[in-house]
């Protein structure tokens, strides 16, 4: 098993599949009356969050607690971080406290890579800047596999602000490793340069959502911040929604079996309409549930829970 999980690219197909299979076992725990395993008893997991992200933090917290780990939540608000302590000094502090794993969310791309140089424990990237969010990609892959029965050969459209999306980067890397085909869809201003060369050679790019929808098994809508229009990435929220939002008529262009995903939090009415978000095709709530199982699997495997 790998020591850190910093990027979707850290995982080969066997390792990724092992995580997904382990997550499926973990999911059975959630159905029990006592939702707890002793696997990480006595181990310490630190949630180090430099950005507000309630949903990701509580997902990791629930995962660690269900494995009986001791969980320390370290958030940037009301901590020494606001007094100007450097990431390195914080890392040395966590090191001195004996953290076995550090789950880090940070607004700067690459911060988890830096952290991994400074602590002995495992580092899990819980989202870094506009770079990656590998456990989100794992839970997305888990959800696709659960709904559609496989990953190899699937056609997945990832739609929206790819440029600023850590979810998109991790998904492209992981899905390509697992044999799915990814098409990135969005206005040209929000598709980063040389994306196929940068991430995975088979990745396609389209600027036309309507032409892509009839041929996909999965459509994953990304959150788009309205403020992007102030930087001229697109003229207005209305025009964005018209060209790249997923509404009822567009959803009906999808094949019968296709599913609709969203990493949350959603901008209802912007990239997705309530009709779509609340439809039976939508996996948005399942994604949250699966997130806990997948993060249990990641912590369990990274911390060597299977070797004890």
């Amino acid at each position, binding site marked *: 098993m790998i020591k850190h999980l910093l990027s979707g690219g850290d995982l080969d197909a066997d390792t990724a599949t092992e995580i997904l299979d382990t997550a499926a076992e973990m999911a059975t725990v959630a159905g029990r009356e006592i939702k707890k395993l002793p696997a990480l008893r006595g181990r310490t997991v630190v949630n180090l969050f430099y950005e507000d992200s309630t949903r990701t933090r509580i997902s990791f917290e629930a995962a660690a607690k269900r494995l009986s780990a001791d969980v320390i939540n370290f958030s940037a608000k009301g901590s020494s971080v606001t007094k100007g302590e450097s990431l390195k000094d914080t890392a040395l502090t966590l090191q001195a406290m004996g953290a076995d794993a550090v789950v880090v969310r940070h607004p700067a791309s690459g911060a988890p890579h830096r952290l991994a140089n400074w602590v002995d424990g495992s580092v899990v990237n819980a989202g870094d800047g506009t770079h990656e969010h590998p456990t989100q990609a794992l839970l997305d892959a888990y959800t696709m596999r659960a709904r559609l029965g496989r990953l190899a050969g699937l056609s997945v459209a990832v739609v929206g602000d790819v440029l600023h999306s850590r979810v998109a980067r991790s998904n492209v890397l992981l899905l390509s490793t697992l044999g799915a085909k990814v098409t990135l869809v969005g206005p040209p201003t929000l598709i980063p340069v040389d994306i196929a060369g*940068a991430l995975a050679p088979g990745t396609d790019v389209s600027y036309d959502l309507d032409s892509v929808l009839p041929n996909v098994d999965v459509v994953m809508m990304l959150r788009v911040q309205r403020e992007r229009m102030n930087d001229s990435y697109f003229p207005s929220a209305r025009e964005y929604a018209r060209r790249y939002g997923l509404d009822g008529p567009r959803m009906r262009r999808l094949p019968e079996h296709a599913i609709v995903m969203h990493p949350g939090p959603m901008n209802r009415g912007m990239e997705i309409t309530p009709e779509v978000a609340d439809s039976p095709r939508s996996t948005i709530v399942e994604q949250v549930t699966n997130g806990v199982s997948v993060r249990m699997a990641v912590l369990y495997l990274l911390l060597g829970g299977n070797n004890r």
Partner: protein
Amino acid sequence: MTAYLITSVSVVGAAPTDLLIRDGVVAEVGTGLSAPDATVIDGTGLVALPGLVDLHTHLREPGREDAETVESGSRAAAMGGYTAVCAMANTSPVADTAGVVEQVWRLGREASLVDVQPIGAVTIGLAGERLAELGAMADSAARVRIFSDDGHCVADPLLMRRALEYVKAFDGIIAQHAEEPRLTEGAQMHEGEVSTRLGLIGWPAVAEEAIIARDVLLAEHVGSRLHVCHVSTAGSVEVLRQAKARGVRVTAEVTPHHLLLTDERAESYDPVFKVNPPLRTATDVAALRSALADGVIDVIATDHAPHAVEDKECEWAYARPGMLGLETALSIALDVLGPEWDLIAERMSRTPARIAGLTGHGVDPAPGAPANLTLIDPAARRTIEPAELASRSRNTPYARMTLPGRIVATFLRGEPTVLDGKAVK
């Protein structure tokens, strides 16, 4: 004053000869010289070059003496074979008045390890809004001739035009940091495959090329001298090539790091590789190397940029851009160009001295020439250890790399500043 007899040394790659240094000048050149009073240096296997001249050095004093001082930077320069450096204006306070440039000049004289020639800011506080008192800096004891807002682009085209015109009165030159600010907001590294993969905001090549294209047209229009700092892209080379072919009075520099390193170094997220302009692609590196050989790029300048540890041991986005360069530049030139001694002398000494108007520098060792020179052992190879550098900072991108060439000695007006590879003072 001690006399020095350097025996059997190759002057700029020529057949071995002896050099006698006395009273601050090269007194004699020829085989079989004898001078009983002189200290003898065995120059067998060594190459003598006119002392190197750096058009682009950040000495950080006044303001960031924790990162570098005029003295520590001067020592680093001497260790790198330099006898003159041009100190950039982005200090704190900014070198935008006669008072500050005279302070830097005086600190350089006191250290007396290299000649420190201050560069003056183009605009007050580097803010890009109003011209600094360029004439007062030119008339000061520091005799400023190069003006630059380096670190910031003089982005306003009208202000750039006025600056280019105004300095004609005292044969000044504007050294432009070519970076269109709107195209590089928040930029962290070269915009391309690697920035996409790393999720770092891209610094597109066009942001440099667009400013250089504009500025060569402005310089042509007003008949002024323009110098382009740290050219980093293949497209910039083409713009410069065309401008020079038309006779525009433009010169250009390239840094050692842009001749050697590429944007793939950012994969580590180690900000020691963060620099502005950023490391580019292998295609750019190849274009810069050939432009340096064919003269479209006139000069290798270090952009020596010391930074305190806490400004580099952090997240990439929060780190300051810049890397050390003075103590490794000659080795990288040797690595990139090979033992082309005349070309190295041209790009690292004669031409930068001419651009900066430093008449005592950039002169090949010959009878009567000022004894500003450096001795290099081209056969030596050394592994760069950050802790061993003379600079007060440690942010070298070449840590643990093995590079060719070693500076054996450096002389400033006949006085050794480096002997046997060690700083004399």
